[in-house]
């Protein structure tokens, strides 16, 4: 097991994510799916732009605030290979639009309201994610 394993911080952070999703639904009536909100802000109707932009601007702010308060001891390590970053970004962008959601929209909001589409989507991206790491790390030895 990885020594970085942090179940309590995971549960606490997860509860905050769940609180944000529940609040956006109960307050504004919206689904807190980040890929849907970003795609909607880029290509969706003007009338929905303001709340979407506000949510998106909150994302870098919240993480920055937690770092400032010293509550993010986890560090930051990302691949430096431009090919992986570009290919990964393209696939995440294209795939989430085609599949109507990502980890937040399908994985959290969708599953917590019992959507069969979201359950299938989540199991699918977990499976291909695990397979991709398996191939890249253990077969090809990259990343």
């Amino acid at each position, binding site marked *: 097991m990885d020594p970085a394993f942090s179940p309590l*911080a995971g549960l606490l952070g997860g509860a905050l994510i769940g609180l944000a999703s529940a609040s956006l639904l109960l307050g504004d009536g919206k689904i807190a799916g980040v890929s849907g909100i970003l*795609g909607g802000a880029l290509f969706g109707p003007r009338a929905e732009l303001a709340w979407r932009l506000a949510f998106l601007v909150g994302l*870098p*702010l919240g993480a920055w605030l937690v770092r400032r308060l010293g509550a993010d001891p986890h560090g930051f390590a990302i691949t430096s290979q431009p090919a992986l*970053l*570009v290919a990964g970004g393209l696939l995440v962008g294209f795939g989430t639009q085609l599949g109507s959601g990502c980890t937040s929209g399908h994985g959290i909001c969708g599953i917590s309201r019992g959507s069969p589409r979201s359950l299938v989507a989540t199991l699918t*991206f977990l499976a291909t994610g695990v397979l991709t790491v398996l191939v890249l790390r253990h077969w090809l030895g990259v990343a």
Partner: protein
Amino acid sequence: MQVLFAGLCGLVFSAGLAVSGMTNPAKVLGFLDVLGRWDPTLAFVMAGALAVSAAGFALSRRRRRPWLASAFAIPSRRDLDARLVGGAALFGIGWGMVGVCPGPALANLGRGSGEAVLFVGAMVAGMALHRLATRERGAVASR
């Protein structure tokens, strides 16, 4: 008010990502790497998020409208199709390449990491590609 509230939700959402360590791509890849030094943290994040979010969705079912808006905007589709599964599969491959999904991608924008910015650029390009592809198909279909 509705817009401000959405911004606050984005902030809390990303605070949760940072507290739980999900803004660190290495930690996400540690979860997907089931054959390596496995880091189960992401499962605890999901559990915490689902518990709170499910309570929120249960509450919303008892309400006719949200606190600040006139109606709930909740997806109603329940059918499974190739786009859903194919999109989720592609998203998972990109997720496994870098360890970043849309929420953490945007949460990390304030970090001053060129890699994080390159990933977001590629992700937005992927979303635009999907937009273009569906438009072309729509144009062909309407001919």
